């Protein structure tokens, strides 16, 4: 089964969602992220959704779940790169994504995550399984 790569940047994890998420992939991502937050003592999780053409409540719930679990593990979650038309639609859908911070791009997202000073550090691929 395929999975979504998780990169480590300083004390943050970066996930770029590129595909039309299906159920198993969403569940797998939540599990993998939880594991890696603990493994790397990550302080933040950046989720890049700039490739997503829509965010429905299925994806919305996944993002909220990730944010909830991250918070319990003492990591912040920042969703980056949401397209304007997606933002407009989410508002009308009535999903405010509580607990999820947003940023325009990964750089700003990293700045939002407290204690991340190594944003310029080379990203090393933490997904080597």
């Amino acid at each position, binding site marked *: 089964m395929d999975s979504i790569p998780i990169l480590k940047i300083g004390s943050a994890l970066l996930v770029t969602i590129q595909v*039309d998420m299906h159920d198993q992939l969403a569940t797998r991502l939540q599990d993998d992220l939880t594991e890696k937050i603990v493994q790397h003592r990550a302080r933040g999780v950046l989720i890049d959704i700039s490739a997503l*053409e*829509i965010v*429905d*409540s299925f994806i*919305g*719930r996944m993002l909220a779940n990730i944010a909830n679990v991250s918070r319990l593990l003492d990591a912040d979650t920042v969703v980056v790169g949401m397209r304007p038309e997606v933002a407009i*639609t989410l508002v009308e*859908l*009535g999903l405010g994504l509580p607990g999820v911070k947003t940023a325009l791009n990964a750089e700003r997202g990293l700045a939002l995550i407290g204690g991340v000073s190594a944003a310029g550090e080379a990203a090393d691929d933490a997904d080597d399984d």
Partner: protein
Amino acid sequence: MPTTTDTLPITSGDDVVRVRQKVRVRATEIGLSLVDQTKLITAASELARNTLDYGKGGHADIETVLGDRRGVRVIFRDRGPGIPDIPQALTDGFTSGNGLGHGLGGARRLVDDFDIQSIVGAGTTVTIARWKR
């Protein structure tokens, strides 16, 4: 004046993805704006998932409407348990499963036309349309 209809089954998560893709093709062809396309596809995604999760599967009819009004119409049909209380189901936050409860009400807000017919024990049909402006 509806043109050819695409009928797609909804029996898996992958089918939900296919419905979204087909709706996007139709919406792009007819020239809906990017925001309108996104709203329609998001509504379709919510309804397709309801068909799968609550309606025990069903299908979607996707059609382009030409004429005075041009747009895309999608009809979701299932022969599931039906919805006993439609106003309650449309209320934001109501879910009988473990969803967020924004799918039905949200879909209604995202489209121009919204119609829901449901008979307990017989099934549910939801029709949505978004028109080019």
